């Protein structure tokens, strides 16, 4: 049997795992990373990046369609057509470049990458299995679990045939005429909107009473309006019963108990993600779990000494940037530094149209925590740049403590607001007050001015409203 030993062994080459490995390599820790599929994990291969690529294509296509049907901008074009095969090729090219880049970075940091399926033997030993090769045994001092998560399956409507997960939805061979999306969370809506823009007839079914149930009403209202504008039909408070006998339609039941059927060429199930905790010998370690997730402390230590876990497998929020920060931290701790995972905020972005971004707490959450707070919004309808982008819907909202004006949360909805997340995260992490942001000159004309104006408004003297 092939055998080698290392100091740090990382299972999983997603954003958490590869960042941990790169940082460890930089710090001179002998590191091996095991990945069964492509480097980059869900994020690069079947998540963040390809979905944004597809969303971009859908946006461009919709723009052209919009122009074809007459535009106030004075642009006219002929009816556009789309070659979805070429779209997927283009997207795969981007993914390929990025995963290749990750491989190069790992190599540069001196990380050994082993392709294959990891199987934990014990807390210090992992066996890697690869088709047609004898298993390779790797010994390590530190074991880092960065195994990620997978799309949750509905037991009565498992994946296969026309029932697909986001993974398949990101590599369509043809565009479905009728698409039913189960789940109005961010994954379902991002893809639902993209498919609608590409020309599919989209229905979205959600068990709760509103879309994007994780966000408040003010934030989701512009998204709901946009869905209507795109012709996407939402079925809220409805549960999915399964495919009908012929497999041609999805049966649903609304809150009143009435059943109906939605014709479907494809059914995208996006009802959440489950941590990957099976199939690689995790149970042999008998470490403490937190529900389905691996339980970790604020240093990402599991209950077993020198076994660490980061990213989606450790719980919410399941976000690539959280996993990356954890991965970097674990590498530094292993190198002997004192570190803790204690972010003041982790921004989350929803790439719907309009986009939604949140960092820190909402006014409701702050009040629920017993924080006396003030909040103020500044609408994009009063922002010149937003108008020039044909985007008047949406706003930026700030939440701050009443006593010392410390900013505890930001929310925004609108076109291209995802880029505001940097400013949101930074101001909270730095401990900025309303006065700090209000006193910072924001460049004109940009969407960012709405940030300054929201802070000014919270202080009672907004200038443009």
């Amino acid at each position, binding site marked *: 049997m092939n055998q080698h*030993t290392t*100091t*740090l062994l990382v299972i999983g080459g997603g954003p958490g795992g590869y960042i941990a490995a790169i940082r460890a390599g930089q*710090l*001179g*820790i*002998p590191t091996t990373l095991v990945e069964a599929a492509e480097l980059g994990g869900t994020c690069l291969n079947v998540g963040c990046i390809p979905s944004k690529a597809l969303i971009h294509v859908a946006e461009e296509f919709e723009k052209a369609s919009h122009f074809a049907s007459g535009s106030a901008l004075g642009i006219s074009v002929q009816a556009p057509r789309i070659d979805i095969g070429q779209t997927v090729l283009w997207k795969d090219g981007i993914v390929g470049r990025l995963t290749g880049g990750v491989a190069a970075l790992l190599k540069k940091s*001196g990380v050994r990458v082993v392709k294959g399926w990891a199987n934990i033997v014990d807390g210090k030993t992992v066996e890697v299995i690869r088709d047609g090769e004898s298993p390779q045994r790797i010994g390590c*001092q*530190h074991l880092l679990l960065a195994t990620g998560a997978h799309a949750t399956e509905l037991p009565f409507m498992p994946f296969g045939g026309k029932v697909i997960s986001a993974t398949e939805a990101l590599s369509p061979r043809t565009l479905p005429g009728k698409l039913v999306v189960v789940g109005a969370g961010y994954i379902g809506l991002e893809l639902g909107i993209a498919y609608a823009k590409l020309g599919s007839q989209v229905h979205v079914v959600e068990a709760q009473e509103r879309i994007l149930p994780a966000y408040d009403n003010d934030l989701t209202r512009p998204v709901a309006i946009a869905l209507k504008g795109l012709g996407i039909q939402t079925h809220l408070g409805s549960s999915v019963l399964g495919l009908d006998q012929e497999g041609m339609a999805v049966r649903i039941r609304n809150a009143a108990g009435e059943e109906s059927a939605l014709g479907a060429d494809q059914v995208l199930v996006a009802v959440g993600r489950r941590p990957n905790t099976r199939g690689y010998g995790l149970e042999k370690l008998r470490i403490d779990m937190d529900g389905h997730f691996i339980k970790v402390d604020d240093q990402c230590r599991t209950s077993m000494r020198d076994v660490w876990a980061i990213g989606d497998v450790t719980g919410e929020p399941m976000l690539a940037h959280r996993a990356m920060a954890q991965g970097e931290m674990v590498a530094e701790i*292993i*190198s*002997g*530094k*004192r*570190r*803790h995972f*204690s972010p*003041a905020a982790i921004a989350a972005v929803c790439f719907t149209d309009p986009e939604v971004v949140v960092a820190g707490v909402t006014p409701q959450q702050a009040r629920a925590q017993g924080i006396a707070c003030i909040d103020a919004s500044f609408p994009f309808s009063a922002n010149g740049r937003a108008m020039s982008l044909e985007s008047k819907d949406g706003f930026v909202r700030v939440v701050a*403590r009443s006593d*010392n*004006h*410390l900013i505890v949360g930001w929310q925004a909805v609108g076109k291209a607001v995802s880029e505001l997340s940097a400013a949101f995260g930074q101001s909270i*992490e*730095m*401990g900025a*007050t309303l*006065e*700090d942001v209000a006193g910072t000159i924001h460049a004109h004309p940009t969407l960012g001015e709405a940030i300054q104006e929201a802070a000014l408004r919270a202080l009672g003297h907004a200038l443009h409203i």
Partner: protein
Amino acid sequence: MGIHVIKMPDIGEGIAEVELVMWHVKVGDAVTEDMILADVMTDKATIEIPSPVHGTVAMLGGAAGQVMAVGADLIHIEVEGEGNLKAQASASSAPAKPAGPAPAPAVQPAPPVVAVPAQAAAGGATPASRAAASPASARVAREPGERPLASPAVRKRAWDMGVELQFVHGSGPAGRILHTDLEAYVARGVQGAPSAVPGGYRENHTEQTIPLIGLRRKIAQKMQESKRRIPHFSYVEEIDVTELENLRTRMNEQWGKERGKLTVLPLLARALVVALRQFPQMNARFDDDAGIVTQYGAVHLGVATQTDAGLMVSVMRHAEARDLWSCASEIGRLADAARTGKASREELSGSTITISSLGPLGGIVTTPVINHPEVAIIGVNKIVERPMVRQGAVVIRKMMNLSSSFDHRVVDGMHAAQFVQAIRALLECPAMLFVE
């Protein structure tokens, strides 16, 4: 000019890591062939690494105290001619970066000794009392559980300094802790401590962080390994050594000058050799991973030796083939070698049973830790004169206890007791030591 690379050598027995104990050279030093470059240490022995070439030291692969992988670049020496390092474009463009997989992690324990203010350990009450002592600067009005407000850079710096931000006053807007607050806190923590109360009666808030490196780390690992793996069974018996001591005195009077003085240890070694003939199961090594006990004909006697650096076990090979004086001189020689750090690997490994003696500090009872993977250790306690009852009369006898531990997985209590009783019989009637 070329670069000659010396890699961390494989010292055998499948060791993957070697600790770099000391450098004898630094970058820029001229070295000659056979000059000692560094001392490295494995589980057992300290080994000197000599230079095979003439040249100038170009790079050191690690700092003293680091554990380095076998095969990692230990040192680069600039030599006349080609050297053995292939000229690589990448190597020349990034000269500062060690080529091999370098420092293992555990060995960067920040600065070796860090004094930190200990409010962290003292809990919530301390800040309040401190606030009273130094008014303006020490206000901390944070609710328990409330998150101290500080930028990521300040947080990171506090972790590096070992400061709990919870107890640091923030002077910035909204009580934000600034770099200057952190500096003020640390400065106060160090000089603020010795104040108010004169004399030695005052709270001492210093803490020392002492990294476990070198021999101390090896000892810690060995001890933990032994106690974790071996269920120890200990047995103590008192032994009347009056006769033995008489004999030893006589021998020292008669032959002390020409053959050297004897301590109790050679006599005890002889008793062990004789007793082990009857109890071969005690003279063994238990490979518990493989589930195999190996009994040895040879008695390689480990002798626990205290050195300045810590405990070491030097090994007297073939005790069964040595007379008392040969034993004595070998024990003395090994102890010297261990204390001066020049004992070879062979002299520090391969024992089959071990004796542990604290000499005059031997105490009444000890609970010796078995030298894994052996199965028995004999601890020697001090000799004292005690009133004993012999044939109805109280007499003064020289008494010595033996405290022994056995691996209860492979040695039963009954046999352990019989073994110690056999040793006792030999020591109480020393003539039996010499009956073949």
